[in-house]
């Protein structure tokens, strides 16, 4: 492995931005956003430089490492503050800094009227730094720092407008649910250290070749818990919808393109563990399949454009997790879908922000309609992202999603058929609800509230959207040309042998396209060719009712965890006061009452004291006499 001295700059630049902006306070209001954007862009520049360095080398020698200093060293527990840039992390580095910079640019305009814009950019830079640390750390513990760092940035950004109590609650919910995932990561690290004696990626990889399956399964399951928390996967998915409380650029960057995909990174990074732990791998697949269906179903019923997109994000990450659980065949496709998704989903979120910008922050799609005429650029960029996400060839999503569906079928046996059908079904539902979003927003007749004057967004906002739209169109083709991405990632994931094809690739593609057509058709009939209510109708099917309530995820969490937790808290408070402290107070009261009883012997008559003394002396002498006899 080659050492490099410039990796730290990737993180240091945005981190410096965050520190400067936060410490400078109001003084930086004028130039803070520019500095933050410039630093994010220069980090992207360093990333590009690193990529050229990598490309100039042989595939096996492309990984760079940098040891900064010894972080924690106690006994055999030695963790360096070390960075690792290999073929996998460079994909993330470029995605994070590239999309991140675009979103910085977008936010300059989007947040221009907010008095706290500087603080917003400070948080964005903090996020970029933490996310880069997450993907660059060379051990699980370093990753953990970035892992919670992005959680913190996400918390701060979801609660950016925390003067609204609901938003403050949403940010707290996200942090706490993420912490449950983080706990999984803690367990994974602890098991790794206790059984393998190391927590670095290279060390664990080496040790995993000889380690017991039980240990690896334990680590794998705990990593899955961590991934589920961060990536909003079943059963820790409930925070993502509420996280839409944050400003829209945040939803685009953190809750669509980058942070929520960290779980996919974690699982693919730990490929050596999952390859040797089939049970854990199976659980990964199950979680992915459940979530992709779950998210898609929720997406069909959401009227809030951001929540619909959030449900879709959840579902698309379900695809990635599913692919990551399919072993060596799927890792590269998971990453490919992650990258293409980063482009089209970020683009669509920015588009949603653009729509909200033109519609006085209205998020209810039932109050949109006919915006195609008023926002042509937004319509075009959003539309390209839409075509990409539903998987229309030759847009990016087609290549990546198709590959996942194909791999799912190829998993073999009943498992393959089940997974493949789930993925296909998901694709159909995706096509349905995304068409619904598209139709309700842009092409159906207008259902605006009064005093709406939709207008196209300014240049600084549509430029990033346009760049992302270009990515949504081209990346799929670029990544698959000559199996480019798969070969690029081979040194990390290892080569996988030829798989027995369950169905010919062309058949799977045909099925996928058919599913998409069915989904689109239903949506068109329901929404384009029939009237849409401006208010959400009440007389809906039981299914819609459940989907609107996110399949009861909040009710479930509340009744299983929150309420019992509150009861438990009250119980402990009561116990502490009445039992534990009560015992202490009882001792005190006993002493006091004993004192007041004994005090009654103090009559105030000097002669009775004298008599008592006399009696005492006589008794004492008698006692001594008796004892010494």
């Amino acid at each position, binding site marked *: 492995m080659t050492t490099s001295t410039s990796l730290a700059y990737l993180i240091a630049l945005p981190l410096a931005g965050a520190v400067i902006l936060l410490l400078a306070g109001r003084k930086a209001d004028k130039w803070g956003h520019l500095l933050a954007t410039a630093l994010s862009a220069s980090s992207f520049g360093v990333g590009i430089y690193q990529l050229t360095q990598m490309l100039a080398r042989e595939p096996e020698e492309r990984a760079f490492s940098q040891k900064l*200093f010894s972080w924690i060293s106690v*006994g055999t527990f030695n963790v360096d503050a070390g960075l690792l840039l290999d073929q996998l992390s460079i994909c993330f580095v470029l995605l994070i800094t590239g999309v991140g910079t675009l979103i910085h640019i977008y936010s300059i305009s989007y947040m221009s009227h907010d008095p706290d814009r500087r603080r917003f950019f400070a948080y964005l830079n903090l996020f970029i730094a933490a996310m880069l640390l997450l993907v660059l750390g060379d051990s699980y513990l370093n990753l953990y720092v970035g892992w919670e760092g992005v959680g913190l940035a996400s918390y701060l950004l979801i609660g950016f407008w925390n*003067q609204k*109590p609901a938003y403050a609650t949403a940010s707290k919910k996200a942090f706490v649910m993420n912490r449950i995932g983080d706990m999984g990561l803690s367990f994974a690290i602890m098991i790794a250290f206790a059984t393998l004696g190391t927590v670095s990626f290279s060390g664990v990889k080496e040790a995993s070749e000889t380690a017991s399956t039980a240990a690896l399964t334990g680590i794998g399951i705990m990593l899955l818990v961590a991934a589920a928390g961060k990536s909003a996967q079943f059963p820790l998915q409930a925070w993502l919808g509420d996280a839409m409380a944050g400003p829209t650029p945040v939803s685009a960057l953190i809750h669509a393109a980058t942070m929520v995909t960290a779980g996919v990174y974690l699982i693919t990074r730990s490929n050596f563990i999952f390859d040797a732990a089939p049970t854990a791998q199976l659980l990964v697949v199950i979680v992915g399949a459940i979530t992709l269906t779950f998210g898609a179903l929720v997406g069909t019923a959401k009227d809030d454009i951001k929540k619909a997109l959030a449900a879709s994000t959840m579902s698309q990450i379900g695809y990635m997790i599913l692919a990551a659980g399919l072993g060596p065949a799927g890792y590269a496709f998971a990453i490919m879908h992650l990258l293409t998704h980063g482009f089209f989903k970020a683009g669509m979120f920015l588009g949603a922000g653009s729509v909200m910008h033109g519609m006085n922050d209205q998020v209810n799609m039932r109050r949109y309609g006919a915006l195609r005429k008023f926002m042509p650029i937004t319509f075009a960029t959003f539309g390209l992202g839409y075509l990409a996400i539903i998987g229309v060839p030759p847009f990016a999503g087609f290549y990546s999603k198709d590959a996942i569906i194909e791999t799912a079928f190829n998993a073999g046996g009943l498992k393959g058929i089940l997974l493949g059908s789930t993925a296909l079904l998901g694709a159909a539902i995706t096509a349905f609800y995304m068409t619904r979003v598209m139709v309700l927003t842009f092409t159906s007749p207008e259902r605006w509230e009064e005093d709406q004057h939709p207008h196209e967004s300014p240049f600084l906002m549509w430029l990033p959207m346009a760049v992302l739209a270009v990515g949504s169109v081209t990346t799929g083709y670029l990544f698959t040309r000559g199996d480019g991405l798969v070969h690029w990632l081979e040194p990390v994931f290892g080569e996988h042998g030829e798989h027995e094809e369950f169905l010919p690739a062309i058949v799977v593609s045909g099925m996928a396209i058919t599913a998409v057509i069915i989904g689109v058709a239903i949506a068109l009939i329901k929404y384009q060719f029939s009237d849409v209510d401006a208010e959400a109708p009440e007389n809906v099917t039981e299914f819609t009712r459940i989907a609107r309530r996110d399949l009861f995820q909040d009710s479930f969490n509340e009744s299983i965890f929150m309420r019992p937790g509150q009861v438990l808290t009250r119980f*402990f408070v009561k116990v502490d006061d009445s039992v534990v402290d009560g015992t202490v107070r009882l001792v005190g009261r006993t002493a006091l009452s004993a004192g007041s009883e004994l005090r009654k012997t103090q009559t105030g008559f000097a002669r009775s004291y004298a008599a008592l003394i006399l009696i005492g002396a006589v008794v004492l002498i008698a006692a001594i006499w008796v004892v010494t006899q």
Partner: protein
Amino acid sequence: MNALSTMMLLPILGTLLLAVIPSDQVLRIKQAALATTLLVAISGVLTWFNFNAADTSFQFVQSVAWIPSFGINYAVGVDGLSLVLILMSVLLAPIVVLAGWKESEGGRWSAKVFYMLILVLETMMIGVFAATDVFLFYVIFEAMLIPVYFLIGGYGTGDRAAAAVKFLLYSLFGGLLMLASIIGLYVISGANGGHTFDINKLSELHNYMSPTTQNLLFLGFFIAFAIKAPLWPLHTWLPDAASSATPGTSVLLLGVLDKVGTFGMIRFCLTLFPDASKTFTPIIITLAVISIIYGAFLAIGATDIKRLIAYTSISHFGFITMGIFAMTTQGHSGATLYMFNHGFSTAALFIVAGWMAARRGSSTIADFGGLQRVTPVMAWSFFIAGMSSLALPGLSSFVSEFLVLVGTFTRYPVAAVIATFGIVLAALYILIPVQKALHGPTTPGNENLPDLNLREKIAIAPVMAIIIVLGFYPSPLLNVINPASAHVLEVQGFTDPTPAEGADK
């Protein structure tokens, strides 16, 4: 002159200096107190740099006969463990003086008495960690109660007299048990090579004790320390004392005095009674885990910000105790580092909470709201301190908490797993007050609260710096702690469990 004795002498000289300043010159008194504590802090840092970490025996040793007929000496010396705690104490003292600039006013007595008490307390804080004579340790251990009693009872708020008495009685009870054990040690030492209170000689003594004797003597020490630390179920004095005392006193109480408990567990319980420690380990680990979870739940349920912080400390002391009795190098070093880090993160929380309460005239969480927009610097200080308290990676507490968990997991996986649930509860007990007090709309009564002034910023900045720097670079501390904790475990006859790499397959 001996570095430790100098450090102990300086605050005494400062007290004498204060004594000659007229009581009405309050500013002069404060300046003198601040200058003294700063001087002590500087000499503490110098001592730190003169310390040889590789040497595991006591350094800066001085021994003067005190009561020769009982073999009692004024004997001081430090190893890595005590040096870290002394450094924490002397760094906290000037911060406490500066942060609590106004809290000495409005007490039962004058500001002069307040600062004299603080300085006397500082001498004892250094002495209690530096003492290598068990009797000297005991005397300071008990004498420390006096200034704290007057600081709580004379300058606190609310039901301060009752809280002070509760604190005093609780501590005296523990001290009495410890005294019994110390006398027991003395008697046994007399029967085995001559009366002594020297810790080095006493640590050989366990070879001559029957298991029952050792267990009883161990319990005497341990209960005293468990009250100090405080460990469930001996904790109920802490919330009362911490919420009634002035913020500065609470910082010294939680940050330094309580550490005497966990310090004592390592220095006396483990060193003097290794076999008894092993016997009681399962019970103590259980109590520690209960403390972690129980303290966290109480913190979640707390309605008063000061009580909340006190409850979080109960949870944190559970972690420290668990790390100590896990008997692994990671657990031990983690616990020691935890003591240092907890000192600063709790100090920050308490100082800022004190400022909030002083401005608002109330410490009920529900009375605050939307402070982030009114007093951003104060809100940020509270937030960072809170993040450190919930052990966010990148801040100092994470390193220590994770070391404790990892160190415990290798020997007691179940305890570590249950304790790890504490990190989710930690997120709740920090984020709930953050949401209620800092976020949300600005509620009536909070619109015009002033933000931190320059003095307050200067007071809190070093704490923040320590919290952040040690999160990324704890090596300077760990380098000093590691040899000391390895030495303790070596004496105990423990080695780290080896990883079960490639158990089957």
